[in-house]
């Protein structure tokens, strides 16, 4: 099981968390473009490398936060 470094609760087992996905940024809501929003919804970089991702500590402090994880080795480190 992965140990996920929660910035509030410290390292905890991944079963307490929900993996939300890539930490992508939302398109500008004041000038919505369908292409941008659909790309935001569906397109995935899915790199076999270090990625920045969002996690949710559902069985803990219920915060959303970012971590960096290597998608091949599953090594996890806190996002800067």
């Amino acid at each position, binding site marked *: 099981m992965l140990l996920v470094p929660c910035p509030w609760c410290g390292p905890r087992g991944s079963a307490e968390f929900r993996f939300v996905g890539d930490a992508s940024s939302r398109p500008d809501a004041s000038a919505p473009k369908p292409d941008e929003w659909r790309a935001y919804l*569906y397109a*995935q970089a899915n790199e076999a490398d270090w990625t920045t991702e969002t996690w949710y500590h559902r069985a803990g402090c219920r915060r959303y936060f970012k971590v960096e994880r290597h998608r091949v080795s599953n090594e996890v480190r806190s996002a800067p």
Partner: protein
Amino acid sequence: MLVRHGLRNRPWPRAWRAPDLRAAYDVVIVGAGVHGLATAYYLARNFGVTNVAVIDKGYIGGGGSGRNTAIVRSNYLTPEGVAFYDRSVKLYEQLAAELNFNVMFSQRGHLTLAHNDSSLRTMRWRAEVNKLQGVDSEVIGPDEIARLVPFMDVSEHTRYPILGALYHPPGGTIRHDAVNWGYARAADAMGVEIHQQTELLGIDVVDDEVVGVTTSRGHISTPVVVNCTAGWSSLISAMAGITLPISTHPLEAAVTEPVKPFLHTVVVSGTLHVYVSQTDRGELVFGASTDSVASYSMRGSLAFCEELAGHVLELMPSLSKLRVLRQWAGLCDMTPDFSPVMGVTPVQGFLVDVGWGTYGFKAGPVSGEAMAELIATGKTPEMIAPFDLARFPEGRLVGEKGAAAVGH
């Protein structure tokens, strides 16, 4: 004859060649799994296109095609899905005779259990969609489930009582390695070249058109590249500048020690995230749902084994003394609508047959047949038109989650 040859201590004849890589091919297929090999086979058989190279960085059937739990069925939820997988079942039924290779297809029946009212409702829905399209599928009650699977706990007072099941008699299991080898041998005999240990390093695109590929064994000129990979499909598409709506997740599976045959159907429980069948050798094969955390890691985990054991014993308490022999993981390319991505891309000559999630093996033959038609004629066959890449920017998703999320 097999016995005679075995006793003579001579090398066995090779089932396929290991040729040198040539400088140009009409078609380069990336991935020597069931999808890539079936595409090559149907290209050669149906359209006479044999100047084809199938390249793979590993060996034949070493990815998802050799890691799946070998279940074949066609009781999907959407009419598009049912028509598609039913064609695959039909092709699998004649495959052994066609390839002259025993693929051990056993249509032993497939049960998807319902543990609550909403899944029973979805089963009913699926059964009606299936029957309308001529696929044998029916909702049955606990009594009949107990008759089909005597070891199942169908009592009312379990944590997840079994309220019914979707029974799909033509579903079953197949020897996945035999399917890969059979397709490889037949394609090779017709002139297709299979290059194992040949890694794709880059795709050359000029003016949005494919002109060639770079591999670990040299450069190839080709106007057509078909991405038939699982696990690495995003990375390979990125070489052509295409971003896919795919997230790669591991899925773990395990087998037990062999025991006498007692389980004569495939049993699936979406609620308990488990499916089980018994092989001809007597081992029980278990699979689960995909890991919710995206990863390219194929390591097994104790957490999986513990969870699996709990769920299996919920269904069949009498298996508590069985020992697990081995466990492994495969990579599943999940799409947002639990349907594949097939067909053309904005880059001319770069085709995809990817995003097969947890249902790729059962679709191997029909995908190969349809992709071969697309490559040879340049027209997208109607059967795969709903699964095009453009459905994501255009917002017309297929929605197969009710039948494909866990159901194997």
